[in-house]
């Protein structure tokens, strides 16, 4: 009132005021470091001496000469495909199961949900113990029913499937999302389908599935982005299973056994903070960025529920 500003100008100022925490956060903690990552990807920089321009040398190094880039990218993509597919199928099945339960829904839902809450490090440490080939309870139980259990986290072929198992144990979030979507399917449609003589399969195929596809799409895309940043579980599992004594500052090769659990985010860390090859680490970051961005664009294009209620 004291300040002579036109109404639209006041409104613009008000909007800016409310948005200011995010505007500052976005520029300082997101836009700036992203540009700096691009800048460093063209520099040779060991974090001690001043950076020097090397053109595309870091890029060439990562894509042509870096021995661990191939395995890391392969493992990350393997996890993206297998983990996301199994998580969606398993999460949907569990959601369906929960909606069919007539007594004790609360108990079952909590039981299925609880593992999702376990902190990733704690869950991983627990799983490495449970799946320990020599002394773990899982192989002990398997032996009792006559199955010779695999070496799980200590076998390059079984290490990634063990991580998948760990992630399926923490399926609770997807279960809840699918459960809510399934409860939202209009009841009348099922009744109409029943009148037409539809069996359980046709009901799922022609009534349930069309109305939950946006949620399935959402689960797939967010799952892909989450798995692109898969880090903690793979790193901790590798470290604990290797049995190497790791004090602070000690450098171990990540991805035990035989780089089978090495992911791109782990490679970013080890390049940037253990080898101090800032340029290569930034190239790897940008590889992650490009893939995650492409998936996010897809998410927003397909109207998978994220932006559909724009107003």
């Amino acid at each position, binding site marked *: 009132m004291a300040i002579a500003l036109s109404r639209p100008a006041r409104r613009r100022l008000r909007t800016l005021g409310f948005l200011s925490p*995010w505007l500052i956060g976005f520029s300082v903690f997101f836009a700036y470091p992203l540009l700096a990552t691009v800048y460093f990807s063209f520099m040779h920089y060991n974090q001690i001496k001043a950076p020097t321009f090397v053109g595309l040398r870091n890029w060439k190094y990562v894509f042509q000469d870096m021995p661990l880039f191939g395995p890391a990218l392969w493992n990350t993509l393997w996890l993206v495909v297998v983990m996301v597919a199994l998580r969606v199928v398993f999460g949907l099945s569990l959601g369906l199961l929960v909606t069919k339960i*007539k007594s004790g829904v609360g108990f079952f839902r909590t039981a299925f949900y609880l593992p999702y809450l376990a902190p*990733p490090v704690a869950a991983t440490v627990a*799983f490495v113990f449970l799946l320990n080939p020599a002394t773990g309870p899982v192989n002990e139980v398997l032996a009792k029913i006559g199955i010779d259990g695999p070496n799980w986290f200590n076998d390059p072929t079984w290490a990634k499937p063990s991580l998948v198992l760990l992630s399926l144990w923490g399926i609770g979030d997807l279960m809840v999302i699918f459960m809510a979507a399934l409860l939202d399917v209009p009841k009348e449609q099922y009744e109409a389908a029943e009148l037409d003589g539809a069996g359980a399969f046709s009901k799922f195929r022609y009534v349930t599935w069309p109305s939950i596809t946006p949620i399935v799409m959402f689960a797939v895309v967010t799952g892909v982005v989450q798995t692109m940043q898969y880090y903690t579980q793979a*790193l901790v599992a590798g470290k604990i299973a290797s049995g190497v004594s790791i004090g602070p500052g000690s450098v171990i090769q990540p991805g035990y056994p035989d780089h089978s659990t090495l992911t791109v*985010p782990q490679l970013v860390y080890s390049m940037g903070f253990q080898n101090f090859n800032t340029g290569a680490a930034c190239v790897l970051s940008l590889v992650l960025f490009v893939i995650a961005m492409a998936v996010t664009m897809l998410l927003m294009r397909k109207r998978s529920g*994220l932006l559909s*209620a724009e107003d």
Partner: protein
Amino acid sequence: MTTTTLRPAASADATAGATGDDGPGRPRRKEILNWIAVHSIAIAVALLFILPFVFVFLTSVMADDQAMSGDLWPDSWHWENYRTVFETDGFLDWWRNSIFYAVVGTLFTVCSAIPVAYALAKFRFRGRRTAMILVISTMMLPPQVIVIPMYLVWAQQFHLSGTLWPLIIPMAFGDAYSIFLLRQFLLTIPKEYIESAKVDGCGELRTLLKIVVPMAKPGIAAIALFQFFYCWNDYFGPQIYAAQNPASWTLSYGLESFKSAHSVNWNLTMAATLLVMAPVCIVFFFAQKAFVEGVTLTGVKG
């Protein structure tokens, strides 16, 4: 709490099904068989989900040598393992750091997310859609994408590596995931409430604090919980900034080194593991409803 909302619907459904079918004998039997099938599967799956907790717990109270043996049931119960864990060097510090990181981080996140989410949900301005797209994009990006320049700034300009501040300070400037989630929640508050407050002469800020915030309590509770768990579980962040300084380690980061300090004492490691999980489970039991609603909101209520 959500149990009570679901149970009546489920049982009503069951009775409707029983009376709705024409044949008196056959549908009932089919329904009972169905009930048995569904519940047997549910019990089997629930067992698989709960057994890891049981094994971890049983090992956590075993004697040192039995914990190495692969036995499933403890010969004698060693509750003092939990005391030993607490008396381990650093464990209490890590506990304190985790709580500090989680509480202050959550507070910062909530305070900064409220005005931003409100503006994105209720103001009309040019660039609103672009702003939302940018929020979602940052929400989707792996933290590794920007970590290196960020680390260099905090370490070289501000000399804050070795502390948790580089993780906490950015939370005062809006966390994309919380903004997005809270905005989705605020969209469900009818315009009329806000308009009538303005008719009564409330300014924008007063409307937000007196009308919107009280109505948005469940949404705010959900983002607070998510952020608390995020901080509590965070491993990558503390590894980047606190790794060189054990006095700044959090439980999630310290837990993994616990093993090496004691050369795989699985009983103590499992006791420590359960102690790291405990606060999360306790918070969940008190705030189950807000939590489940939050999860649902992200996925479903676009």
